[in-house]
């Protein structure tokens, strides 16, 4: 069984994002970029399936400009066998991503698509669900445990107030939540080896998918600055302030 792992190149989670001076978006020029942390978890899960002999090949795929191949090299340094870059300089939205991934899925025929539940840059949480719908496959989202047995996969999901366990028939789409696993480090020898692993580049506009966006970014602004708090002396004063100043009760 193949496992396909879509990964996204995002502003590194350690960076405090800064809104561009003209409000057109978040500053990404010269900012450290890395693999979306949820995708790292999804990749780790795929690697563990391969190590348990439940999968025989792990393929990483990303969509973006040439430089996005960095995250594919990282994926291969962690252990992915090969990688595909779907190259485009266009800004693409989840619907288009799902359409592009569908083409790759149909070409590669993986048993599982293992992906992050969302990307930390736009927090859309949409691509996995859309891809499953377009493929007509079952989906196990927000996975905190994944168990493969007899052409089925059991996915434990974190839901409000507990854990829900789903049994999906394969092939299926699984999206990874934070507690699924702790991804491994890419070691120095593996980074060196990754430079020799195959990385295929496909032009996005050669796949017959409409790349036009239907979402429009109106503006991006920083949250309003918090004003300093005050220490109240009594409960009465607190209630009074909540009524007259905060106007919340």
């Amino acid at each position, binding site marked *: 069984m193949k496992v396909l792992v879509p990964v996204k190149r995002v502003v*590194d989670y350690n*960076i405090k994002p800064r809104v561009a001076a003209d409000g057109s978006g978040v500053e990404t020029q010269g900012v*450290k970029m890395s693999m979306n942390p949820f995708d790292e978890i999804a990749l780790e899960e795929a690697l563990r399936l391969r190590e348990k002999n439940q999968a025989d090949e792990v393929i990483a795929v990303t969509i973006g400009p040439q430089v996005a191949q960095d995250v594919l090299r990282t994926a291969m340094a962690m252990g992915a066998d090969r990688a595909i870059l779907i190259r485009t300089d266009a800004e693409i939205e989840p619907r288009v991503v799902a359409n592009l991934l569908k083409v790759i899925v149909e070409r590669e025929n993986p048993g599982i698509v293992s992906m992050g539940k969302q990307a930390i840059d736009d927090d859309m949480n949409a691509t996995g669900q859309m891809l499953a719908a377009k493929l007509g496959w079952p989906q196990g989202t927000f996975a905190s445990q994944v168990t493969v047995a007899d052409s089925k996969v059991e996915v434990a999901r974190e839901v409000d107030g507990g854990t829900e366990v789903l049994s999906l028939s394969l092939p299926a789409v699984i999206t990874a939540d934070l507690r699924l696993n702790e991804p491994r*480090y890419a070691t*120095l020898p593996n980074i060196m080896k990754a430079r020799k692993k195959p990385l295929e580049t496909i032009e996005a506009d050669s796949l017959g998918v409409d790349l036009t966006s239907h979402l429009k970014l109106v503006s991006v602004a920083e949250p309003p600055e918090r004003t300093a708090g005050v220490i109240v002396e009594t409960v009465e004063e607190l209630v009074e302030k909540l009524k007259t100043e905060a106007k919340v009760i």
Partner: protein
Amino acid sequence: MTQPSNDSTAIERDEMAFDVVIVGGGPSGLTAAIRLRQENPDLSVCLLEKGSEIGAHIVSGAVLEPRTLEELFPDWKERGAPLKTPVSDEKLLYLTKKSALPIPALHMLMPQMDNRGNYVISLGELCRWLGEQAEALGVEIYPGFSGADLFIEDGKVCGVITGDMGINRDGQHKPDFTPGMILRAKQTILSEGARGSLSKKAMATFDLRKNAEPQTFGLGIKEVWEIPAENHRPGFVQHSFGWPLDTHTYGGAFLYHFGENLVAYGFITALDYRNPWLSPFEEMQRTKQHPAFKPHFEGGRRIIYGARAISEGGIQSLPHPVFPGGVLTGDSAGFLNMPKIKGIHTSMKSGIIAADAVLEALKNEQPEADSYMDRLRSSWLWQELYAARNIRPSFSRWGMIGGALYSGIDSMIFRGRAPWTLHHPHADNATLLPADKAPKIDYPKADGKLTFNRPESVFLSNISHDEDQPVHLQVAKMDVWKEVNLGRFAAPESRYCPAGVYETLAQDGEEEQLVINAQNCVHCKSCDIKDPEQNINWCTPEGASGPNYPVGM
């Protein structure tokens, strides 16, 4: 206390062999790497960088004299080197509390301050660019991996050991434990910047400071601001000395307009300061309120913060830069030209010269690149540092005004060829006065708009640091801290650390304790330098820990 790097013999480690291993992806290390592959494309050259990417730990003013870049890449313009803002106007100001006196006829009085033909740059951006050039030439660059220890065999450095990953705070292996590797090398180039931890070890192991005067350092603290386009004056350069420092403290501020509406502002405080109550961070903050600086920040917002120690000692303080199996380059050795307030072109030049010496040693299969010293002596780098040698020590000797007067005479009349050499008498850790013999300094409270506190500042350094790892700031003896640091000097580390790593905390009625917030560390190395009894040792944390400075720094 756990020793994350020194139990290196106990673990079985993978090995890889290279011709040359370089530790540090700053200007000197990258230049050396480039030069090696330019001259011999068959050499295998590996460069380690402890930051998460090239440039992540780079802090510098910076005004660049393009001389060495031109030697390295005569076609740097066509290659798109990020030198975008030529210096257009410059001022040197002597500050009093309320006013600023410009030094007249600056280029005549202080020819070393002549910045015509130079560029205001982001050194982080230049390093990223040098990194790309190096990779294109076939240098293998590994960011996120620290050189944790020297690998020594039969009295010769035979490479380095990279840091272990996945050790918890108590020194136990976590499930993802990954031991560091031995990277064997015929020659090892240490390019770690000021007070590099492996350079320190090499100097001690091979007694490289035997004939050198003590090194003296400065702590540079820097902010980058984004200001409204209408206030931006690309290429404007301003330096100041005088207020707010007392006359026994060497240092001053710099302010450069560059890039897309950016202003680099910083303050350097010499670490041989005497008053333990002094806070380089607060000096930096309050200087922004001076009328000569304040208008430059009008309507702007602060976007990056960082700090780094630099070497100020010059030629008198240079260690012997060659040891069996390797060399020191850049600020690891101390090639910065302090009177010029520039170290990039000198650092890069030392990288070129070191690479040439290493090439010769490899060709002749010698263990020591001993032609490095002769090559240095016959280079313009040596002449430049020799001419500048008396300026910095004159300030320690005669204070701010005396030093400034002496500097004028030394540069104008003797043109750096005075028949004497002034000395650096003490190491920086030996200069503090007892706290009760020094005046306390009343620093203004941060206003949150122009001036800030430490936590708000460190927030802008984008630090990544897994807290569940051994503390990389090792205090050898807590009783020495209590008696000397706390008892005699009133915990000076809580003031000189620009990142708020060190705090003293007293829990109801109990004695004050030292708290080390290692996760705040911006890797400036000041504690390793200034700690009075040299009781604090800075060692490398897990690779990719520390700040993530974006382009602009």
